[in-house]
């Protein structure tokens, strides 16, 4: 159960000619709650997007569940930092959550009752059931975030990759999200979460990756999340530049 679920080997990523990630080598443990921390511009989002094959790396490899093909992405629910979705699109919250079920469909893509039930259950989990028929454009920022987390839950993936899901969210919702994450972890899911509040890392995550363009340290939070490592990551412009 406690094997490695994601293996990154010698990953290099650049935007045009500007390097963003250097020689990333990283194992992410199966069934862990892994935080990714580092200063602004450290390349946290870049690393996640590369995992999701949204960015093509200069070199290196990413193995997920032993696979490198595109199909493996269906097992990953990805919640981007800022949902770059079409906010004017005519869709209700339930419509959006139902989209999460798409990955489980065969050639006939019609929504079945089972999908509806799962979507409604996911909305309940995120305490969004009252908004089920609300237009997605008519939600507050925190409600939007919850709707997208509900979609990720409805997707019923093995791996959850979230880019700062707690950003701009009140403490009640934050606790709710962390409870859901712990509950799903108990069901065997793996969480990779970009996280900005250093004071809650120990409480919220059992594993941590500290990075700034390159990996500074990674491993169990208790062992790795030390003042020394944090200082290394947050000191000036980064390492090796």
């Amino acid at each position, binding site marked *: 159960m406690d094997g490695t679920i994601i293996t990154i080997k010698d990953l290099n990523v650049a935007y045009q000619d500007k390097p963003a990630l250097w020689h990333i080598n990283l194992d992410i443990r199966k069934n862990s709650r892994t935080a990714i921390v580092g200063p602004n511009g450290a390349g946290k989002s870049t690393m996640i997007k590369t995992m*999701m*094959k*949204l960015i093509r790396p200069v070199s290196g490899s990413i193995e997920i569940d032993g696979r490198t093909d*595109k*199909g493996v*992405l*269906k097992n*990953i629910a*990805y919640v*981007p930092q800022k*949902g*770059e*979705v*079409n906010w*004017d*699109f*005519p*869709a*209700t919250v339930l*419509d*959006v959550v139902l*989209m999460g079920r*798409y*990955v489980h469909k065969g050639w006939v*893509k019609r929504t079945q009752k089972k999908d509806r039930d799962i979507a409604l259950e996911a909305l309940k989990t995120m305490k969004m059931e009252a908004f089920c028929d609300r*237009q997605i454009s008519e939600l507050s920022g925190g409600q939007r975030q919850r709707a997208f987390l509900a*979609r990720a839950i409805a997707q019923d993936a093995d791996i959850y990759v979230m880019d700062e899901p707690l950003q701009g969210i009140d403490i009640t919702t934050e606790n709710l999200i962390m409870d859901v994450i712990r509950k799903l972890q108990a069901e065997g899911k793996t969480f990779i979460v970009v996280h900005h509040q250093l004071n809650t890392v120990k409480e919220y995550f059992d594993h941590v990756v500290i990075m700034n363009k390159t990996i500074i340290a990674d491993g169990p939070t208790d062992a790795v999340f030390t003042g020394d490592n944090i200082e290394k990551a947050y000191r000036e412009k980064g390492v090796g530049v």
Partner: protein
Amino acid sequence: MMEVLTSFTFIVVAAGTMILAFAGGMVGAISVMKGQSLIGDAVGHATFPGIVLAFMLIGVKETYTLALGAVLFGIIAFLTIQMITNHSKVTLDGALALVLSSFFGLGMALMSFVQGNPDFEGTQGLNDYIFGQAAYMLRSDVYLITAASVISLFILAAFYIQIRIYIFDPVFSRTAGINNTLMNFIILIITILLISVGLKAVGAILIVNLLIAPAVIGQLWSSRFSTVLLIAGSSGAFAAFTGTYISTAGENIATGPAIILTLSFLMALSLFCAPKGIIRRNIYKRRMGGVS
């Protein structure tokens, strides 16, 4: 009035424009929601030189060849727009304006060249492709429109769920295994196809309105994706019928402008009366305590 309604020409023409406008409204709603309505405008104008060149090559105004010329130039125009935006600092709206005016200008230049040239006969009908003249539509035009519309709607139905996810959230659609490039290509191809077959009925200048106006109407009346598409298609078809009637009954009214005017009227009406229109919004605001 009954004479017009039962005349064979009218039935043929009305059927053609209605099918075209129904498919155009649906496909247009997708382009509009994707934020691409102006690409349709540029492509619409850019098909005109394709028509004239096809005519110059074969010497007659043969429906299928002219449509093929239009499709080709629509694709060339789109590729040009992409090339300009990808490889230069020119923004999308700049590239659109550039392509629209230069392609259409080329079409106009070619047309005046052919019209003043004794080597070419039967050039007078080329004007119809600028403003549209449904009354001169041939049976082959209607067949072509029907075939293109049915194919477009069929493709739309086949990829409906994927297209819907892709337009709402392209990042999610990609990670969910939907081929975004293919979706974009499908939307573009059916847009170009419908524009090309509809030129004779509505004209290169106004055809984009057949894509945009129904979409606006649909979005004003509904906040469900499927309903927006249906309303867009239906209002397009209704305007096509009314416009064709006006144009067939009255003497010198081109069909394109007549259809577009009807659409504009429907749009103005919706803008005021629809749930998301001006009046209802204000009533709602007042009920909520007058805070705007």
